[in-house]
């Protein structure tokens, strides 16, 4: 099972201000990431720049609106993510609990969809469903409009 693990810093303001964490915290986090790698569970990880360097694309009424960051109304901002390969949700929770996070920080784990979630049986069911829909659409085309 794969999990995306999101770091939501306790103080969005401090994070958005681009404040670098304390040396000790950085060292603790590096050690933590090392432990994840040594355990063979770490697939990927990255820190994210503050949202001032980002942008949002909003979809509404068929239009796309682009807004540059920062997004200060957002109370929760994602500071970074990991991708882990584990055997169970409980294992992800255990590892997440070991994160050297600060008071107020939140770490969220989300399971990642994988190919095996869409096994051949699902593909067959999907194909059958698509065929059914196609048939219905053909029938609808032949019927006169109301």
């Amino acid at each position, binding site marked *: 099972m794969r999990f995306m693990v999101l770091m939501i810093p306790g103080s969005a303001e401090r994070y958005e201000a681009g404040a670098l964490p304390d040396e000790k915290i950085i060292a603790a986090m590096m050690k933590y990431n090392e432990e994840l*790698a*040594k*355990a*063979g*569970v770490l*697939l*990927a990880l990255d820190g994210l720049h503050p949202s001032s360097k980002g942008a949002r694309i909003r979809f509404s009424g068929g239009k796309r609106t682009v807004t540059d960051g920062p997004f200060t109304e957002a109370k929760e901002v994602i500071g970074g993510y990991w*991708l882990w*390969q584990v*055997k*169970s949700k*409980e*294992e992800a*929770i*255990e*590892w997440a609990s070991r994160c050297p996070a600060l008071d107020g920080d939140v770490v969220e784990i989300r399971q990642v969809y994988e*190919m*095996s979630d869409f*096994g*051949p*049986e699902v*593909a*067959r069911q999907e*194909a059958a469903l698509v065929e059914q829909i196609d048939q219905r659409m053909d029938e609808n085309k032949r019927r006169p409009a109301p």
Partner: protein
Amino acid sequence: MTHRAIEAVWRIESARLIAALARIVRDIGLAEELAQDALVAALEQWPESGVPDRPGAWLMAIAKHRAIDLLRRGKRLERKHEELGHELAARLELAEPDLVAALDDPVGDDLLRLVFISCHPVLSTEARVALTLRLLAGLTTEEIARAFLVPEATVAQRIVRAKRTLAAARVPFEVPRGAELAGRLASVLEVVYLVFNEGYAATAGDDWLRPALCEEALRLGRILAELAPQEPEVHGLVALMEIQASRAGARIGPSGEPVLLLDQDRARWDHLLVHRGLAALERAEKLGGAFGPYALQAAIAACHARARTPTETDWARIAALYDALAQLAPSPVVELNQAVAIAMAFGPAAGLALVDELASEPLLKDYHLLPGVRGDLLAKLGRFDEARAELERAASLARNARERALLLGRAAACARGPAPPHG
């Protein structure tokens, strides 16, 4: 705290725990028992007291206290005190907290030692696989049995006998060094790759524990890469597994039929795993020296992984890599693959010349791919009658109905003339 949560802690901590205990008591069987005792204590106490802040340290402390207890009472020791060394015997006189600290592993070699012992050449391959999955991957006997389609009792026996064999052979609890290291490491890598291949061979209807073996092997490989980062073949094996695993989503067609590499939808390749595989290969390269067999196979897989479409494949490089592999680990199958690569790079005539050299190879006598490849090359050269005959012969050697149908289809196509190019 639920049982599953405690299981998760066990999965994270058990290998290191057993490894430390193995160093202390010098007996794998006893080490595992002491570790299991600590687990029982956790299952009894944690649901009420809650999870300790550092569950690994908690388990280690419980197990070490039991170990010291046993050592002091001289119970169940397989070896005498003298063999444990004067230093350890002297330490037994220390007060307990000092003793627990003194038994720490300053160099961090415990886990690596356990890896080498579990894969010791004195054990049969099945024993090594069972012991490794049990002690290092933390799988239960039942899980191992289901994954390998053997009865649980068989696996249990293998593990019991393996522990006895190791004790009887008085295998030293050391990380092999110098001239011994290469062979011992090869034994470890062989076990890991065997587990991976067992998982890779799993088919759609199988118990989910079978394809999960690929994940277990990858985990073991990645752990090994951090335990022995200076070993290029470890990174080579990891690279090979990451890249092969990257194709899992593209390997099976909609009706469950296998899809050949060159026909796979590359958008369905897991590009994170490809990226990781290429990174692991780079680690092997940076260590310098000639590539070993795993790194070479990984380099071949990397050539495919880097090509966005089959037509972009660097076949010349693949042919050269197969040449190097054939010199290191000569095998007619490797040479056949080399012939295919040479044909793709330099034309079917060049490939056919090599295939013809393999015609009398006894090991390939009943191997359907030999006439299969020959038939394809003959077809590309416009020699359709000969091609059809070879492909029909290949069909007669096919291992199952699907393979046979594919080959008969290609044979019939020869009657119709040239086939469209790939890609």
